[in-house]
């Protein structure tokens, strides 16, 4: 290949830019990770959750979540058998430090971990005016904080209340399903910290993932199915009173 002086001069700036990337280093290796081979979701087994708050703390530490805001939180439901449609719910500091003694006698009590549902048809990505929030080819809804204009339309559009405006970056923030971890073969911080295995990362495209056996043998539900968001946060043992 003959490169004339003219072509060489044209290529020079491109080469300089490429060299910058070389110096910056390649992204940390994610061996054998192919985006299109995965479709991520999560399984939450309500009957296993003990409300310890480990997941909330692990998430906050792993992702530097500012105080008072939550990428994940745990709710405690108290449902009276005399008033099923009106449960009493609390989540002190997002359940980060566990829960105080039970609210009332009678009825049933259970914990519900909440986080982004990584919806396949997510309303938040639909409304973002600049496309700063998007769904990755492997099914994770993320926000490009270098692109987000901070309009907060996505916060309004999320039916599950899973987004907030980071007061430091002034951009929308939410659970990334620990994308930096799962693309390296690790599980999420919340799943790793859960002492009872109430949270299980699920790869719906992987035929060997235990999620498939679980989905075949259990009655699982998603939150607010009437919203038709294609939520991928599957709940086992979900009570009808949970919103």
């Amino acid at each position: 290949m003959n490169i004339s002086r003219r072509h060489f001069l044209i290529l020079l700036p491109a080469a300089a830019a490429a060299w910058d990337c070389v110096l910056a280093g390649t992204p940390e290796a994610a061996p054998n990770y192919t985006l299109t081979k995965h479709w991520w979701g999560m399984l939450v087994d309500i009957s296993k959750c003990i409300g310890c708050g480990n997941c909330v703390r692990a998430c906050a530490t792993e992702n530097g979540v500012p105080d008072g805001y939550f990428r994940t939180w745990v709710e405690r439901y108290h449902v009276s058998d005399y008033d099923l449609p009106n449960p009493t719910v609390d989540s002190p500091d997002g359940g980060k430090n566990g829960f105080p003694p039970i609210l009332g006698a009678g009825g049933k009590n259970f914990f519900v971990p909440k986080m982004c549902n990584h919806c396949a048809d997510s309303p938040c990505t639909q409304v973002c005016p600049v496309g700063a929030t998007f769904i990755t080819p492997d099914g994770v809804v993320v926000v490009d904080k270098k692109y987000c204009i901070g309009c907060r339309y996505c916060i309004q559009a999320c039916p599950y209340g899973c987004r907030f405006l980071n007061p430091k970056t002034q951009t929308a923030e939410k659970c990334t399903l620990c994308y930096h971890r799962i693309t390296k073969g690790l599980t999420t911080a919340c799943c790793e910290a859960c002492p009872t295995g109430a949270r299980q990362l699920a790869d719906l495209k992987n035929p060997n993932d235990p999620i498939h056996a679980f989905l075949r043998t259990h009655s699982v539900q998603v939150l607010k199915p009437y919203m038709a968001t294609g939520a991928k946060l599957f709940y086992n043992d979900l009570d009808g009173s949970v919103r």
Partner: protein
Amino acid sequence: MPVQGYMYPDEVELAWSILVVLYPFITGLVAGAFILASLERVFRVEAVKPTYRLALLTALAFLIVAPLPLQLHLGHPERSFEMYLTPHRSSAMAMFGFVYLWYLMAVLVLEIWLDFRRDIVLLSQRTKGLKRFIYRVLTLGSTNISENALRIDERIGYIITVIGIPSAFLLHGYVGFIFGSVKANPWWSSPLMPVVFIFSAMVSGIAVVLLIYMFSSWYRKQKIDMRCVDAIARYLFYTFLIDFSLEMLDLVHRIYEADESFRSLDFMVHTRLYLSQVVIQIYIGTLAPIALLALTQLLKLGQKTRKRIYAVAGSLTLVGIFAMRWNVVIGGQLFSKSFLGYTTYKMGFAAKEGMLSAILLTLLPFAILWVLVKLLPPWPGSEPVVTGGPAPALGDD
């Protein structure tokens, strides 16, 4: 008590503040003022002619300010141009920039320029110094004011107004769609929302032009053209009736359907929104002005009384429409999407998104209008007159 019941933890702090209340309020005034102006131009309602040019300048003054509350509200205003460069086509909000620019440049500015072009050319010849320079720039080099040229101006102006009416509907109907299309929020999610927004915009725009016209006549010590204000008040009355009927239809539908969100919304209307929704929006801001305007339609009242009634009804109307925007934007965030709890809106005073910013942004359009009126007097009979025979062809373009 800031939180009552249970809110999802990230819901406690409201995402949209009073600045987002101002945005639909201001764009509503723009759309309404323009629609009033178009009555004269397109539908040949001669009675409202004295307010035609004033309505156009009012619309422009408010349109210039319309994006400012949003800019101030954004976490990264310096990135807002991305909406033009890489708009996300599925986003209702992404089209804002384009709808806004279309309305500002293709409709309003062009129409005002065509309408005032003759005055601008004449003023550019009669004034001196800086004023002369400004008028010369405003002519954009087009100085032909022959009868033929003015006829063409009139023709194009008419076409632009015809395009402008659906554009005004688009501008504000679209703002309604931004809210009405949020399925996560039952307070907003309604196909009626864009229609209600359009009619409430017309109501507020007509009211603001009526008030500005009456105030400016008083300030200039000019006699108010009663035929004009009577006609405007009549349009205000009829539009208000349609607007109120639509809002009541929405309310009745919600009450009768009583879906899962109803208890929550009903509780809110009876508690946290009682003052702003029931008292201010419905009683003071809607029923009172409608009753006052009805009086002027039913009884034969003297001029002085009618003027007073129009002034009070117009002011109450603006209060009511502002309350409506408040109840939509703020009210829609006071309850949890879990329908289990309620939060409170804490508005700072001197904060970036506080009351002071809102007050300044509300006053700014009036300051801009003052400058516009000084530059391009819109009053009937204030047009510069060509002396010495028929209007000459001053240029060859």
